[in-house]
Protein backbone atom coordinates (compact mmCIF):
# COMPACT_ATOMS: atom_id res chain seq x y z
CA UNK A 1 0.00 0.00 0.00
CA UNK A 2 1.26 3.40 -0.92
CA UNK A 3 1.84 5.98 1.77
CA UNK A 4 -0.61 8.26 -0.04
CA UNK A 5 -3.77 6.21 -0.57
CA UNK A 6 -6.73 7.66 1.27
CA UNK A 7 -10.23 6.47 2.02
CA UNK A 8 -12.88 9.11 2.57
CA UNK A 9 -16.65 8.77 2.41
CA UNK A 10 -17.37 7.60 -1.13
CA UNK A 11 -13.81 8.17 -2.19
CA UNK A 12 -11.13 5.59 -2.52
CA UNK A 13 -8.19 7.71 -3.60
CA UNK A 14 -4.77 6.63 -4.81
CA UNK A 15 -3.50 9.88 -3.42
CA UNK A 16 -5.03 12.86 -1.65
CA UNK A 17 -4.26 15.48 -4.32
CA UNK A 18 -6.91 16.83 -6.66
CA UNK A 19 -7.59 19.96 -8.68
CA UNK A 20 -10.11 22.31 -7.05
CA UNK A 21 -13.41 23.09 -8.68
CA UNK A 22 -13.37 25.84 -11.28
CA UNK A 23 -9.65 25.63 -11.84
CA UNK A 24 -9.68 22.57 -14.05
CA UNK A 25 -12.85 22.84 -16.14
CA UNK A 26 -14.06 19.32 -16.85
CA UNK A 27 -10.54 18.09 -17.37
CA UNK A 28 -10.38 18.25 -21.17
CA UNK A 29 -7.69 20.92 -21.35
CA UNK A 30 -5.39 19.41 -18.75
CA UNK A 31 -5.78 15.98 -20.36
CA UNK A 32 -3.64 17.37 -23.19
CA UNK A 33 -0.87 17.95 -20.66
CA UNK A 34 -0.82 14.79 -18.56
CA UNK A 35 -2.70 11.59 -17.79
CA UNK A 36 -5.62 12.53 -15.55
CA UNK A 37 -5.55 9.03 -14.01
CA UNK A 38 -2.56 10.22 -11.99
CA UNK A 39 -4.82 12.43 -9.90
CA UNK A 40 -6.41 11.44 -6.61
CA UNK A 41 -9.72 12.83 -7.82
CA UNK A 42 -11.06 15.69 -9.90
CA UNK A 43 -13.36 18.38 -8.59
CA UNK A 44 -15.12 19.52 -11.73
CA UNK A 45 -16.53 22.97 -12.45
CA UNK A 46 -19.76 23.96 -10.69
CA UNK A 47 -22.88 22.75 -12.44
CA UNK A 48 -26.26 24.49 -12.35
CA UNK A 49 -29.58 23.20 -13.74
CA UNK A 50 -29.49 25.49 -16.75
CA UNK A 51 -26.45 26.52 -18.77
CA UNK A 52 -24.96 29.80 -17.57
CA UNK A 53 -22.79 32.32 -19.29
CA UNK A 54 -21.57 33.88 -16.07
CA UNK A 55 -20.40 37.44 -15.56
CA UNK A 56 -19.10 39.91 -18.11
CA UNK A 57 -15.33 40.18 -18.56
CA UNK A 58 -12.81 41.10 -17.18
CA UNK A 59 -13.35 38.19 -14.85
CA UNK A 60 -9.89 37.90 -13.32
CA UNK A 61 -7.41 40.31 -11.77
CA UNK A 62 -4.09 39.73 -10.14
CA UNK A 63 -3.47 40.75 -6.52
CA UNK A 64 -0.37 40.59 -4.30
CA UNK A 65 0.29 36.87 -3.99
CA UNK A 66 -3.11 35.93 -5.31
CA UNK A 67 -5.88 36.59 -7.80
CA UNK A 68 -9.51 37.61 -7.92
CA UNK A 69 -12.03 35.83 -10.07
CA UNK A 70 -15.65 36.55 -10.84
CA UNK A 71 -16.46 33.87 -13.37
CA UNK A 72 -20.02 33.69 -12.10
CA UNK A 73 -20.52 29.93 -12.36
CA UNK A 74 -20.34 29.72 -16.11
CA UNK A 75 -21.14 26.14 -17.07
CA UNK A 76 -22.85 24.18 -19.81
CA UNK A 77 -25.76 23.13 -17.56
CA UNK A 78 -26.85 19.87 -15.98
CA UNK A 79 -27.84 18.00 -19.13
CA UNK A 80 -24.63 18.63 -20.96
CA UNK A 81 -22.50 17.89 -17.93
CA UNK A 82 -24.35 14.65 -17.32
CA UNK A 83 -24.50 13.47 -20.91
CA UNK A 84 -21.21 14.80 -22.30
CA UNK A 85 -18.63 15.95 -19.78
CA UNK A 86 -18.92 13.16 -17.21
CA UNK A 87 -19.07 10.32 -19.78
CA UNK A 88 -15.98 11.79 -21.45
CA UNK A 89 -14.17 11.64 -18.10
CA UNK A 90 -14.94 7.92 -17.77
CA UNK A 91 -11.92 7.07 -19.89
CA UNK A 92 -9.74 7.98 -16.89
CA UNK A 93 -9.32 5.93 -13.76
CA UNK A 94 -10.17 8.79 -11.44
CA UNK A 95 -13.16 9.50 -9.19
CA UNK A 96 -15.07 12.67 -9.89
CA UNK A 97 -16.37 15.04 -7.25
CA UNK A 98 -19.21 16.98 -8.81
CA UNK A 99 -19.56 20.61 -7.70
CA UNK A 100 -23.22 21.58 -7.36
CA UNK A 101 -24.54 25.13 -7.49
CA UNK A 102 -27.77 26.98 -7.99
CA UNK A 103 -29.96 29.90 -7.04
CA UNK A 104 -32.56 28.00 -5.05
CA UNK A 105 -32.77 24.87 -2.93
CA UNK A 106 -34.60 23.19 -5.78
CA UNK A 107 -31.73 23.94 -8.12
CA UNK A 108 -29.28 22.21 -5.82
CA UNK A 109 -31.57 19.26 -5.29
CA UNK A 110 -32.16 18.80 -8.97
CA UNK A 111 -28.49 18.87 -9.94
CA UNK A 112 -27.47 16.73 -6.99
CA UNK A 113 -30.03 14.07 -7.69
CA UNK A 114 -29.02 13.61 -11.29
CA UNK A 115 -25.25 14.01 -11.03
CA UNK A 116 -25.03 11.60 -8.11
CA UNK A 117 -26.24 8.92 -10.52
CA UNK A 118 -23.34 9.32 -12.92
CA UNK A 119 -21.18 6.21 -12.62
CA UNK A 120 -17.91 8.08 -12.15
CA UNK A 121 -19.26 10.66 -9.70
CA UNK A 122 -18.21 9.33 -6.30
CA UNK A 123 -19.12 12.35 -4.24
CA UNK A 124 -20.88 15.69 -4.51
CA UNK A 125 -19.42 19.01 -3.44
CA UNK A 126 -22.14 21.42 -2.43
CA UNK A 127 -20.99 24.89 -3.41
CA UNK A 128 -22.73 27.11 -0.87
CA UNK A 129 -19.91 29.59 -1.00
CA UNK A 130 -19.62 31.11 -4.44
CA UNK A 131 -19.21 34.83 -3.91
CA UNK A 132 -19.74 35.75 -7.54
CA UNK A 133 -23.41 35.25 -8.16
CA UNK A 134 -26.32 37.45 -7.18
CA UNK A 135 -28.62 34.78 -5.80
CA UNK A 136 -27.85 31.55 -3.98
CA UNK A 137 -24.21 30.68 -3.58
CA UNK A 138 -22.72 32.46 -0.64
CA UNK A 139 -26.11 33.26 0.91
CA UNK A 140 -26.47 29.59 1.80
CA UNK A 141 -22.97 29.52 3.17
CA UNK A 142 -23.22 32.37 5.63
CA UNK A 143 -26.47 31.37 7.31
CA UNK A 144 -26.10 28.21 9.42
CA UNK A 145 -29.77 27.33 9.29
CA UNK A 146 -29.99 27.66 5.50
CA UNK A 147 -26.80 25.64 5.17
CA UNK A 148 -28.15 22.86 7.39
CA UNK A 149 -31.48 22.60 5.58
CA UNK A 150 -29.91 22.62 2.15
CA UNK A 151 -27.46 19.91 3.14
CA UNK A 152 -30.28 17.79 4.45
CA UNK A 153 -32.36 18.15 1.29
CA UNK A 154 -29.44 17.29 -0.92
CA UNK A 155 -28.49 14.32 1.24
CA UNK A 156 -32.01 12.96 0.80
CA UNK A 157 -31.71 12.75 -2.96
CA UNK A 158 -28.03 11.97 -3.41
CA UNK A 159 -26.80 8.48 -4.22
CA UNK A 160 -23.26 9.38 -3.15
CA UNK A 161 -21.71 11.09 -0.11
CA UNK A 162 -22.07 14.85 0.08
CA UNK A 163 -19.25 17.26 0.92
CA UNK A 164 -20.14 20.84 1.66
CA UNK A 165 -17.84 23.63 0.52
CA UNK A 166 -17.54 26.36 3.10
CA UNK A 167 -17.11 30.06 2.58
CA UNK A 168 -14.40 31.85 4.58
CA UNK A 169 -16.43 35.08 4.54
CA UNK A 170 -18.08 34.38 7.89
CA UNK A 171 -17.67 35.47 11.49
CA UNK A 172 -17.80 31.95 12.82
CA UNK A 173 -16.75 29.15 10.50
CA UNK A 174 -17.20 26.48 13.17
CA UNK A 175 -20.86 27.33 13.51
CA UNK A 176 -21.48 26.78 9.81
CA UNK A 177 -19.40 23.62 9.80
CA UNK A 178 -21.36 22.16 12.67
CA UNK A 179 -24.64 23.12 11.03
CA UNK A 180 -23.83 21.24 7.85
CA UNK A 181 -22.49 18.28 9.79
CA UNK A 182 -25.76 18.30 11.62
CA UNK A 183 -27.54 18.44 8.26
CA UNK A 184 -25.86 15.16 7.37
CA UNK A 185 -22.80 16.22 5.40
CA UNK A 186 -20.29 13.42 4.91
CA UNK A 187 -17.37 15.79 4.63
CA UNK A 188 -16.32 19.39 4.21
CA UNK A 189 -14.27 21.12 1.59
CA UNK A 190 -12.72 24.44 2.53
CA UNK A 191 -12.05 27.13 1.78
CA UNK A 192 -13.76 28.81 -1.10
CA UNK A 193 -12.56 32.31 -1.99
CA UNK A 194 -12.48 35.43 0.17
CA UNK A 195 -14.43 38.38 -1.19
CA UNK A 196 -12.09 41.02 -2.56
CA UNK A 197 -11.71 43.87 -5.03
CA UNK A 198 -9.09 45.70 -7.04
CA UNK A 199 -9.49 49.17 -8.46
CA UNK A 200 -7.68 50.35 -11.55
CA UNK A 201 -6.09 53.77 -11.02
CA UNK A 202 -6.33 54.44 -14.74
CA UNK A 203 -10.08 54.27 -14.87
CA UNK A 204 -10.92 54.77 -11.21
CA UNK A 205 -13.16 51.71 -11.51
CA UNK A 206 -12.96 48.14 -10.19
CA UNK A 207 -10.98 45.96 -12.59
CA UNK A 208 -13.56 43.17 -12.56
CA UNK A 209 -16.74 43.86 -14.48
CA UNK A 210 -18.55 42.23 -11.56
CA UNK A 211 -16.72 44.70 -9.28
CA UNK A 212 -16.01 42.23 -6.46
CA UNK A 213 -14.46 38.82 -6.92
CA UNK A 214 -13.17 35.82 -5.03
CA UNK A 215 -9.61 35.97 -3.72
CA UNK A 216 -7.55 32.81 -4.10
CA UNK A 217 -3.92 31.78 -4.23
CA UNK A 218 -1.04 31.80 -1.72
CA UNK A 219 -2.18 35.00 -0.04
CA UNK A 220 -5.23 33.24 1.45
CA UNK A 221 -3.36 30.19 2.74
CA UNK A 222 -3.02 31.39 6.36
CA UNK A 223 -6.78 31.97 6.52
CA UNK A 224 -7.48 28.49 5.14
CA UNK A 225 -5.06 26.85 7.57
CA UNK A 226 -6.59 28.67 10.51
CA UNK A 227 -10.13 27.71 9.55
CA UNK A 228 -9.28 24.06 8.98
CA UNK A 229 -7.39 24.01 12.28
CA UNK A 230 -10.49 25.29 14.06
CA UNK A 231 -13.14 23.31 12.24
CA UNK A 232 -11.32 19.97 12.30
CA UNK A 233 -11.31 20.07 16.08
CA UNK A 234 -15.06 20.53 16.28
CA UNK A 235 -16.45 18.22 13.63
CA UNK A 236 -15.98 14.52 13.11
CA UNK A 237 -16.34 14.48 9.33
CA UNK A 238 -13.23 14.72 7.15
CA UNK A 239 -12.06 17.90 5.46
CA UNK A 240 -10.62 18.32 1.99
CA UNK A 241 -8.42 21.39 2.36
CA UNK A 242 -7.62 24.07 -0.21
CA UNK A 243 -6.59 27.69 -0.46
CA UNK A 244 -3.20 28.72 -1.79
CA UNK A 245 -1.56 25.33 -2.17
CA UNK A 246 1.54 25.52 -4.36
CA UNK A 247 3.71 22.63 -3.21
CA UNK A 248 3.95 19.30 -1.41
CA UNK A 249 4.99 21.24 1.70
CA UNK A 250 1.76 23.21 1.53
CA UNK A 251 -0.25 19.99 1.27
CA UNK A 252 1.45 18.75 4.43
CA UNK A 253 0.66 22.02 6.21
CA UNK A 254 -3.04 21.45 5.39
CA UNK A 255 -2.84 17.90 6.76
CA UNK A 256 -1.17 19.10 9.95
CA UNK A 257 -3.95 21.66 10.34
CA UNK A 258 -6.57 18.93 10.11
CA UNK A 259 -7.26 18.14 6.45
CA UNK A 260 -7.55 14.57 5.15
CA UNK A 261 -6.98 15.45 1.50
CA UNK A 262 -6.03 18.56 -0.44
CA UNK A 263 -7.12 20.41 -3.53
CA UNK A 264 -5.11 22.75 -5.72
CA UNK A 265 -6.81 25.69 -7.41
CA UNK A 266 -5.02 28.79 -8.65
CA UNK A 267 -1.62 27.13 -8.87
CA UNK A 268 -2.88 25.10 -11.84
CA UNK A 269 -2.78 28.37 -13.79
CA UNK A 270 0.72 29.23 -12.64
CA UNK A 271 2.12 25.74 -13.17
CA UNK A 272 -0.24 23.45 -15.08
CA UNK A 273 1.79 20.43 -13.98
CA UNK A 274 1.56 21.23 -10.28
CA UNK A 275 -0.74 18.34 -9.30
CA UNK A 276 1.38 15.50 -10.69
CA UNK A 277 4.49 17.25 -9.33
CA UNK A 278 3.08 17.35 -5.83
CA UNK A 279 1.95 13.74 -6.05
CA UNK A 280 5.50 12.83 -7.05
CA UNK A 281 7.11 14.71 -4.20
CA UNK A 282 4.76 13.75 -1.38
CA UNK A 283 5.96 10.22 -0.52
CA UNK A 284 9.51 11.31 0.26
CA UNK A 285 8.30 14.26 2.29
CA UNK A 286 5.96 12.06 4.30
CA UNK A 287 8.86 9.74 5.06
CA UNK A 288 11.13 12.63 6.00
CA UNK A 289 8.50 13.74 8.49
CA UNK A 290 8.73 10.36 10.16
CA UNK A 291 5.30 9.15 9.10
CA UNK A 292 4.51 5.86 7.39
CA UNK A 293 1.36 7.16 5.85
CA UNK A 294 0.20 10.69 5.07
CA UNK A 295 -3.01 10.17 7.02
CA UNK A 296 -0.98 10.06 10.25
CA UNK A 297 -0.33 13.74 9.75
CA UNK A 298 -3.98 14.81 9.77
CA UNK A 299 -4.55 17.14 12.70
CA UNK A 300 -1.08 16.67 14.19
CA UNK A 301 -0.93 20.35 15.08
CA UNK A 302 -3.67 19.88 17.66
CA UNK A 303 -3.84 16.15 18.39
CA UNK A 304 -1.85 14.86 21.31
CA UNK A 305 1.00 12.96 19.73
CA UNK A 306 4.68 12.33 19.80
CA UNK A 307 6.73 15.05 18.18
CA UNK A 308 7.40 14.57 14.53
CA UNK A 309 10.82 13.36 13.57
CA UNK A 310 13.13 16.25 12.84
CA UNK A 311 12.49 17.72 9.45
CA UNK A 312 15.46 18.36 7.16
CA UNK A 313 14.61 20.48 4.17
Amino acid sequence: MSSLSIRLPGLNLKNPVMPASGCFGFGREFSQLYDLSLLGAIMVKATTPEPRFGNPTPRVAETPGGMLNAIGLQNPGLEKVYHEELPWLEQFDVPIIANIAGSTEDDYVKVAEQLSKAPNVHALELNISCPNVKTGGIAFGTDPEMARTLTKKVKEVSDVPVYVKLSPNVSDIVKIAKAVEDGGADGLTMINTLLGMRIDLMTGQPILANKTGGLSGPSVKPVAIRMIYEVSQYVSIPIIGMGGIQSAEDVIEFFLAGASAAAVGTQNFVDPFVCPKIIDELPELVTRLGADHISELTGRSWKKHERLAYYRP
Partner: protein
Amino acid sequence: MITQEVCTVVSNRQIADSIYAMVLSGNITDAMDQPGQFVHVKVADGLDPLLRRPISIASINKEDRSFMIVYRKQGKGTSLLAEKQSGMTVDVLGPLGNGFPAAEVKPGQTAILIGGGVGVPPMYELAKQLARNGVKVISVIGFQSEGAVFFEQELARFGAVYVTTADGTYGRKGFVTDILGDLGTTADFVFACGPTPMLRAIENGQYGAKTYLSLEERMGCGIGACFACVCHTKEDPKGFSYKKVCSDGPVFQAGEVVI
Protein backbone atom coordinates in the same frame (compact mmCIF):
# COMPACT_ATOMS: atom_id res chain seq x y z
CA MET B 1 1.18 20.19 -28.43
CA ILE B 2 1.26 22.54 -25.50
CA THR B 3 4.51 22.35 -23.55
CA GLN B 4 6.03 24.13 -20.63
CA GLU B 5 9.70 24.94 -20.92
CA VAL B 6 12.24 27.07 -19.20
CA CYS B 7 13.57 28.94 -22.23
CA THR B 8 16.82 30.87 -22.43
CA VAL B 9 16.91 34.55 -23.30
CA VAL B 10 19.02 34.99 -26.44
CA SER B 11 18.55 38.74 -26.58
CA ASN B 12 16.27 41.39 -25.18
CA ARG B 13 16.45 44.90 -26.51
CA GLN B 14 14.36 48.01 -26.65
CA ILE B 15 13.09 48.72 -30.16
CA ALA B 16 10.81 51.70 -29.55
CA ASP B 17 9.44 53.77 -26.66
CA SER B 18 8.65 51.19 -23.96
CA ILE B 19 8.68 48.43 -26.58
CA TYR B 20 11.06 45.48 -26.24
CA ALA B 21 11.88 42.54 -28.48
CA MET B 22 13.01 39.38 -26.73
CA VAL B 23 14.37 36.32 -28.49
CA LEU B 24 14.02 33.08 -26.56
CA SER B 25 15.39 29.67 -27.43
CA GLY B 26 13.95 26.30 -26.59
CA ASN B 27 12.49 23.11 -28.03
CA ILE B 28 9.07 24.64 -27.58
CA THR B 29 9.57 26.22 -31.01
CA ASP B 30 9.17 22.75 -32.56
CA ALA B 31 5.47 23.00 -31.80
CA MET B 32 5.07 26.57 -33.04
CA ASP B 33 3.47 27.01 -36.41
CA GLN B 34 0.59 29.40 -36.64
CA PRO B 35 1.15 33.13 -36.61
CA GLY B 36 -1.15 34.69 -34.02
CA GLN B 37 -0.66 32.00 -31.40
CA PHE B 38 0.69 33.16 -28.08
CA VAL B 39 2.80 32.02 -25.17
CA HIS B 40 1.92 32.31 -21.50
CA VAL B 41 4.97 33.57 -19.69
CA LYS B 42 5.95 33.35 -16.01
CA VAL B 43 8.30 36.30 -15.65
CA ALA B 44 9.63 35.54 -12.17
CA ASP B 45 9.88 32.59 -9.82
CA GLY B 46 7.76 32.84 -6.75
CA LEU B 47 4.82 35.04 -5.93
CA ASP B 48 5.56 38.35 -7.49
CA PRO B 49 3.91 38.43 -9.94
CA LEU B 50 1.96 35.22 -9.52
CA LEU B 51 0.16 34.75 -12.80
CA ARG B 52 1.53 34.18 -16.27
CA ARG B 53 1.36 36.87 -18.93
CA PRO B 54 -0.02 36.21 -22.43
CA ILE B 55 2.26 37.51 -25.19
CA SER B 56 1.92 36.87 -28.93
CA ILE B 57 4.57 35.01 -30.83
CA ALA B 58 6.10 37.62 -33.14
CA SER B 59 8.33 35.35 -35.15
CA ILE B 60 9.50 31.75 -35.19
CA ASN B 61 12.90 30.51 -36.25
CA LYS B 62 12.68 26.74 -36.52
CA GLU B 63 16.29 26.22 -37.55
CA ASP B 64 17.91 27.64 -34.44
CA ARG B 65 14.91 26.81 -32.27
CA SER B 66 14.25 30.37 -31.25
CA PHE B 67 11.24 32.65 -31.28
CA MET B 68 10.63 36.31 -30.69
CA ILE B 69 8.12 38.13 -28.55
CA VAL B 70 7.60 41.90 -28.63
CA TYR B 71 6.02 43.56 -25.64
CA ARG B 72 5.22 46.90 -24.15
CA LYS B 73 6.76 47.55 -20.75
CA GLN B 74 3.68 48.42 -18.78
CA GLY B 75 2.95 46.85 -15.41
CA LYS B 76 4.96 44.70 -13.06
CA GLY B 77 5.20 41.64 -15.28
CA THR B 78 6.43 43.29 -18.44
CA SER B 79 8.76 45.54 -16.42
CA LEU B 80 10.47 42.48 -14.98
CA LEU B 81 10.60 40.96 -18.44
CA ALA B 82 12.35 44.08 -19.70
CA GLU B 83 15.08 43.56 -17.09
CA LYS B 84 16.01 40.09 -18.33
CA GLN B 85 19.43 39.74 -19.87
CA SER B 86 20.69 37.19 -22.32
CA GLY B 87 21.49 33.92 -20.64
CA MET B 88 18.71 34.33 -18.11
CA THR B 89 15.64 32.13 -18.31
CA VAL B 90 11.90 32.56 -18.72
CA ASP B 91 9.27 29.91 -18.02
CA VAL B 92 7.11 29.61 -21.13
CA LEU B 93 3.87 27.71 -21.67
CA GLY B 94 2.80 27.36 -25.26
CA PRO B 95 2.12 27.61 -28.04
CA LEU B 96 -1.44 28.47 -27.11
CA GLY B 97 -4.62 29.19 -28.98
CA ASN B 98 -5.54 29.27 -32.62
CA GLY B 99 -3.78 31.80 -34.80
CA PHE B 100 -4.39 33.29 -38.22
CA PRO B 101 -5.25 30.72 -40.91
CA ALA B 102 -2.30 31.62 -43.12
CA ALA B 103 -2.70 28.42 -45.12
CA GLU B 104 -6.18 29.44 -46.27
CA VAL B 105 -4.77 32.25 -48.37
CA LYS B 106 -3.90 31.14 -51.90
CA PRO B 107 -0.76 32.25 -53.69
CA GLY B 108 -1.53 35.39 -55.66
CA GLN B 109 -4.33 36.51 -53.38
CA THR B 110 -4.08 39.77 -51.46
CA ALA B 111 -3.99 40.02 -47.67
CA ILE B 112 -4.14 43.21 -45.66
CA LEU B 113 -2.42 42.89 -42.30
CA ILE B 114 -3.48 45.45 -39.73
CA GLY B 115 -1.73 45.98 -36.42
CA GLY B 116 -2.32 48.55 -33.72
CA GLY B 117 0.40 49.12 -31.09
CA VAL B 118 1.36 45.82 -29.49
CA GLY B 119 -1.03 44.21 -31.95
CA VAL B 120 1.67 44.63 -34.60
CA PRO B 121 4.03 41.82 -33.45
CA PRO B 122 2.03 38.77 -34.63
CA MET B 123 1.74 40.43 -38.06
CA TYR B 124 5.45 39.92 -38.54
CA GLU B 125 5.34 36.12 -38.53
CA LEU B 126 2.10 36.22 -40.48
CA ALA B 127 3.61 38.43 -43.18
CA LYS B 128 6.61 36.11 -43.40
CA GLN B 129 4.49 33.02 -43.88
CA LEU B 130 2.11 34.65 -46.36
CA ALA B 131 4.89 36.15 -48.45
CA ARG B 132 6.67 32.80 -48.48
CA ASN B 133 3.47 31.36 -50.01
CA GLY B 134 3.30 33.99 -52.72
CA VAL B 135 0.54 36.03 -51.15
CA LYS B 136 0.50 39.76 -51.80
CA VAL B 137 0.92 41.37 -48.41
CA ILE B 138 -0.08 44.92 -47.50
CA SER B 139 0.60 46.03 -43.93
CA VAL B 140 -1.18 48.87 -42.19
CA ILE B 141 0.15 49.63 -38.76
CA GLY B 142 -0.91 52.28 -36.26
CA PHE B 143 0.79 53.80 -33.23
CA GLN B 144 0.36 56.64 -30.75
CA SER B 145 3.29 58.69 -31.97
CA GLU B 146 6.64 58.52 -33.72
CA GLY B 147 8.61 57.11 -30.82
CA ALA B 148 6.32 54.13 -30.55
CA VAL B 149 6.69 52.99 -34.15
CA PHE B 150 8.36 49.62 -34.75
CA PHE B 151 8.52 46.82 -37.34
CA GLU B 152 8.02 49.19 -40.30
CA GLN B 153 11.23 47.99 -41.96
CA GLU B 154 10.67 44.39 -40.99
CA LEU B 155 7.24 44.32 -42.58
CA ALA B 156 8.46 46.21 -45.62
CA ARG B 157 10.43 43.10 -46.62
CA PHE B 158 7.12 41.41 -47.41
CA GLY B 159 5.12 44.16 -49.08
CA ALA B 160 3.87 47.70 -48.85
CA VAL B 161 3.64 49.21 -45.37
CA TYR B 162 1.44 52.13 -44.31
CA VAL B 163 2.03 53.75 -40.95
CA THR B 164 -0.33 55.96 -38.98
CA THR B 165 0.22 57.81 -35.73
CA ALA B 166 -2.58 59.20 -33.61
CA ASP B 167 -0.73 62.48 -33.12
CA GLY B 168 0.61 62.74 -36.65
CA THR B 169 4.27 62.78 -35.62
CA TYR B 170 5.03 60.03 -38.11
CA GLY B 171 3.35 58.61 -41.19
CA ARG B 172 -0.25 59.54 -41.68
CA LYS B 173 -2.07 61.27 -38.83
CA GLY B 174 -5.03 59.26 -37.66
CA PHE B 175 -5.97 55.63 -37.37
CA VAL B 176 -5.39 52.54 -39.45
CA THR B 177 -8.97 52.75 -40.68
CA ASP B 178 -8.18 56.09 -42.34
CA ILE B 179 -5.67 54.29 -44.53
CA LEU B 180 -7.97 51.35 -45.18
CA GLY B 181 -10.70 53.60 -46.45
CA ASP B 182 -8.32 55.10 -48.97
CA LEU B 183 -6.51 51.96 -50.08
CA GLY B 184 -9.07 51.09 -52.68
CA THR B 185 -7.88 47.51 -52.84
CA THR B 186 -10.40 44.82 -52.13
CA ALA B 187 -8.39 42.29 -50.26
CA ASP B 188 -9.14 38.61 -50.22
CA PHE B 189 -8.20 38.49 -46.59
CA VAL B 190 -7.93 40.99 -43.79
CA PHE B 191 -6.01 40.05 -40.64
CA ALA B 192 -5.99 42.38 -37.65
CA CYS B 193 -4.71 42.60 -34.12
CA GLY B 194 -4.94 45.59 -31.82
CA PRO B 195 -7.16 47.47 -29.41
CA THR B 196 -10.82 46.51 -29.34
CA PRO B 197 -12.17 49.79 -30.82
CA MET B 198 -9.85 49.24 -33.80
CA LEU B 199 -11.08 45.68 -34.25
CA ARG B 200 -14.69 46.83 -34.14
CA ALA B 201 -14.05 49.45 -36.79
CA ILE B 202 -12.37 46.87 -39.00
CA GLU B 203 -15.21 44.42 -38.55
CA ASN B 204 -17.70 47.09 -39.54
CA GLY B 205 -15.58 48.39 -42.42
CA GLN B 206 -15.53 45.07 -44.28
CA TYR B 207 -12.24 45.74 -45.98
CA GLY B 208 -11.86 42.24 -47.38
CA ALA B 209 -13.77 39.16 -48.40
CA LYS B 210 -12.77 37.39 -45.22
CA THR B 211 -11.65 39.08 -42.04
CA TYR B 212 -9.86 37.56 -39.05
CA LEU B 213 -9.42 39.43 -35.79
CA SER B 214 -7.18 38.65 -32.84
CA LEU B 215 -8.79 39.46 -29.49
CA GLU B 216 -7.36 40.33 -26.10
CA GLU B 217 -8.80 39.42 -22.72
CA ARG B 218 -7.49 39.07 -19.17
CA MET B 219 -6.54 35.47 -18.64
CA GLY B 220 -6.15 32.98 -15.86
CA CYS B 221 -5.04 29.61 -17.20
CA GLY B 222 -4.46 30.46 -20.86
CA ILE B 223 -5.47 26.95 -21.90
CA GLY B 224 -9.25 26.98 -21.68
CA ALA B 225 -9.89 25.59 -18.22
CA CYS B 226 -10.86 28.59 -16.08
CA PHE B 227 -13.47 30.47 -18.13
CA ALA B 228 -11.77 33.81 -17.47
CA CYS B 229 -11.60 34.90 -21.09
CA VAL B 230 -14.90 34.03 -22.67
CA CYS B 231 -16.86 36.10 -25.14
CA HIS B 232 -20.36 35.75 -26.52
CA THR B 233 -20.93 34.38 -29.99
CA LYS B 234 -22.53 36.68 -32.54
CA GLU B 235 -25.38 34.28 -33.24
CA ASP B 236 -26.38 34.21 -29.58
CA PRO B 237 -25.10 37.53 -28.22
CA LYS B 238 -27.04 37.42 -24.91
CA GLY B 239 -27.24 33.69 -24.45
CA PHE B 240 -24.92 31.16 -22.95
CA SER B 241 -23.03 30.04 -26.01
CA TYR B 242 -19.46 31.29 -25.84
CA LYS B 243 -15.94 31.11 -27.13
CA LYS B 244 -12.77 31.20 -25.09
CA VAL B 245 -10.26 33.75 -26.29
CA CYS B 246 -7.35 31.65 -25.05
CA SER B 247 -8.18 28.30 -26.62
CA ASP B 248 -10.84 28.95 -29.28
CA GLY B 249 -9.11 32.22 -30.22
CA PRO B 250 -7.37 34.54 -29.85
CA VAL B 251 -8.06 34.77 -33.59
CA PHE B 252 -11.70 34.64 -34.67
CA GLN B 253 -13.33 35.24 -37.98
CA ALA B 254 -15.22 38.55 -38.07
CA GLY B 255 -18.82 37.85 -37.18
CA GLU B 256 -18.03 34.83 -35.07
CA VAL B 257 -17.94 36.48 -31.67
CA VAL B 258 -19.12 39.70 -30.06
CA ILE B 259 -16.24 42.11 -29.66
